[in-house]
């Protein structure tokens, strides 16, 4: 009951007209940085920190967190329209979002994505409001062994996502892992596969690879079909909104699954990306119309988007309660809090309750206003596709180059992007699937690190990955899902035998 009172008090602060105006400014700015690949919420937050210093603490944090919410909404726009994910957690959205847009339903795809974000946000914010301390305790139970189990679970969700040739699927997974391993090995402190080159020391950035493989690769595939002078027909209207809403209501499973996975995974730093992949994989496996996935299926947009936003919302929880930032943006926001003399961590709830509740209330307000803003602009975004290809294509290449550069401020990344673009085109033509490769690239590092940390703790004994109470059930579920195709054939055989 006390929570509700606190929330109402916080809402009173967040709903002051000045604070609402600030939230709208932050959201619009956030959407812009989210849309531009290479720029993330972190950039948006960083430029505003000097401005924020002169504001009251609660207003300042409303501004910073609004940028964060805006960036979460904005990240999926480019995934759907151009096959270029603005943020790592929007990669899974490209699998179905882009095909749907390409078939002329860009408006519907956007509406679906935004509504799923809204749904993920609602669940995340409810958790944040009522169960924050409880969930923080749960998050603490996740050590390296548990993280590794979660990684295995994510991979197992993707078993069914291979291409036509199993051999080439395996090859592209290996290739993804290999790229992930380049650079500093944090566990041993050795440089791997850098061959003395400074450029390789930083490794291959996931965003650069994705911009090349997905974005440029797709452009090559498009021009191959003959230079399209006319843009994609993008009808947008109220009909899309209505249909989007209807599809969301028709797919409650995808929404709930996505939001739950997201909220759960978001508790650990960097959790949003695996969450969106995992939600996509599970949703595909559990849906009846598996074959439609990858061709523009609605659940294929709903699940990863709900997961991404759910994770984004629950990522604020470890920052407030434990003082660990869940993402680079959160890290910069944390720096902002310190300027106000607020030390994020367990004491924040006790010492600055008014501030924390103002922040939580602004999560409610910011997400709802954000949803209205992006929904209102959805037709405008979709209309971008009407621009003639010869104008819009070079601009995309230009923005991709900026994005690739801005990730690490390195020119070499722009060259990598071009190379990845050619590779993406060839891979697609030759049936090397890209999705498992990208998954391996983004999670390879995390998985290896967690595994080796856990093994040092277990003094080399792999049984640590099966320790109760958390790692064991996750691992069992992962293994069952991994071997499900095998299990089900065996089951079927037994059934037929019995029948005979």
């Amino acid at each position, binding site marked *: 009951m006390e929570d509700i009172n606190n929330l109402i008090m916080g809402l009173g602060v967040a709903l002051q007209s000045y604070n609402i105006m600030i939230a709208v400014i932050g959201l619009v700015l956030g959407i*812009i*940085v989210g849309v531009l690949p*290479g*720029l993330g919420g972190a*950039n*948006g937050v*960083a*430029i505003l920190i000097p401005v924020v210093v002169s504001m009251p603490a609660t207003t300042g944090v409303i501004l910073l967190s609004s940028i964060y919410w805006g960036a979460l909404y904005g990240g999926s726009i480019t995934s759907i329209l151009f096959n270029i994910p603005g943020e790592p957690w929007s990669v899974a959205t490209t699998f179905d979002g882009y095909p749907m847009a390409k078939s002329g339903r860009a408006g519907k795809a956007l509406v679906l994505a935004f509504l799923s974000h809204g749904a993920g946000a609602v669940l995340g914010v409810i958790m944040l409001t009522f169960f924050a301390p409880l969930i923080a305790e749960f998050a603490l139970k996740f050590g390296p062994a548990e993280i590794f189990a979660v990684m295995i679970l994510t991979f197992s969700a993707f078993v069914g996502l291979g291409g036509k040739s199993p*051999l*080439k699927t*395996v*090859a592209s997974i*290996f*290739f993804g892992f*290999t790229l992930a*391993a380049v650079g500093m*090995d944090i566990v*041993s402190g*050795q440089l*791997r*596969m850098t*061959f003395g080159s400074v450029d390789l020391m930083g490794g291959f950035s996931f965003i650069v690879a994705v911009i090349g493989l997905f974005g440029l690769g797709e*452009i*090559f595939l498009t*021009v*191959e*079909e*003959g230079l399209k*002078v006319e843009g994609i027909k993008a009808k947008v209207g109220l009909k899309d909104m209505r249909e989007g809403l209807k599809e969301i209501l028709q797919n409650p499973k995808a929404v709930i699954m996505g939001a739950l996975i997201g909220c759960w995974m978001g508790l650990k730093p960097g959790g949003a990306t695996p969450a969106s992949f995992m939600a996509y994989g599970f949703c595909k496996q559990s849906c009846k119309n598996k074959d439609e996935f990858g061709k523009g299926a609605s659940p294929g947009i709903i699940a990863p988007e709900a997961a991404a936003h759910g994770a984004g919302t629950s990522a604020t929880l470890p920052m407030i309660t434990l003082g660990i930032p869940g993402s680079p943006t959160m890290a910069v926001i944390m720096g902002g809090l310190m300027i106000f003399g607020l030390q994020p961590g367990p004491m924040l709830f006790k010492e600055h309750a008014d501030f924390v509740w103002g922040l939580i209330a602004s999560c409610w307000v910011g997400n709802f206003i954000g949803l209205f803003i992006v929904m209102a602009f959805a037709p405008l975004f979709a209309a971008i596709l009407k621009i*003639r*290809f*010869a*104008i819009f*294509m*070079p*601009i995309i*290449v*230009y*923005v991709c*180059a*900026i994005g690739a*550069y*801005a990730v690490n*401020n390195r*020119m070499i990344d*722009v060259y990598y992007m*071009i190379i990845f*673009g*050619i590779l993406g*085109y*060839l*891979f697609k*033509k*030759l049936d*090397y699937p890209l999705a498992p490769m990208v998954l391996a690239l983004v999670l390879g590092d995390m998985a*290896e690190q967690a595994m*080796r940390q856990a*093994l*040092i703790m277990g003094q*080399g004994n792999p049984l640590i990955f099966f320790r109760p109470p958390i790692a064991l059930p996750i691992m069992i579920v992962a293994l069952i899902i991994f071997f499900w195709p095998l299990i089900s054939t065996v089951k079927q055989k037994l059934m037929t035998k019995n029948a005979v």
Partner: protein
Amino acid sequence: MRKADIFIALLLMSVGILVLVDSVRLGFKWGMSGPESGFFPFYLGSGLIICSLTVLFNVMRKYRKGGGEERLMPEGALKPILWVLIPATVMIAVTGLVGLHVAAALYLAFYMRAVGKIGWVTTILISLIVPISLYIAFDKLFLVPLPQGLWGAKLIPF
């Protein structure tokens, strides 16, 4: 199709060999407390080599049998692809001299005019407005300095 298949397989194989060499240097055994830092790369490298060898073998067998030579890309598709790829690469190469925004302005103008056959007015307007607004957004507002090249600082007066 066949050449491209062989090319990618050979590429993956050479990556595999590089990885293998480096993982031997790093140590690839299961050490006292779990795997050494070359452990995973070693198996990744071996896996890549095995996969690409199998792919190569399959390709050879398929085409020896005289399986119809499918084309990698449809007739006449290479030209438009190169029309995208080469100007983009040139833009990036020129960035080292004049900076990304100026190079992009030239690239936009070239592509729209020479390939897209778009009217002069539109071409010039777009190839000025887009880089200038992105310059303001990144370099001025978000303080993300983009490469200026050798002469870039002198080419942009503000």
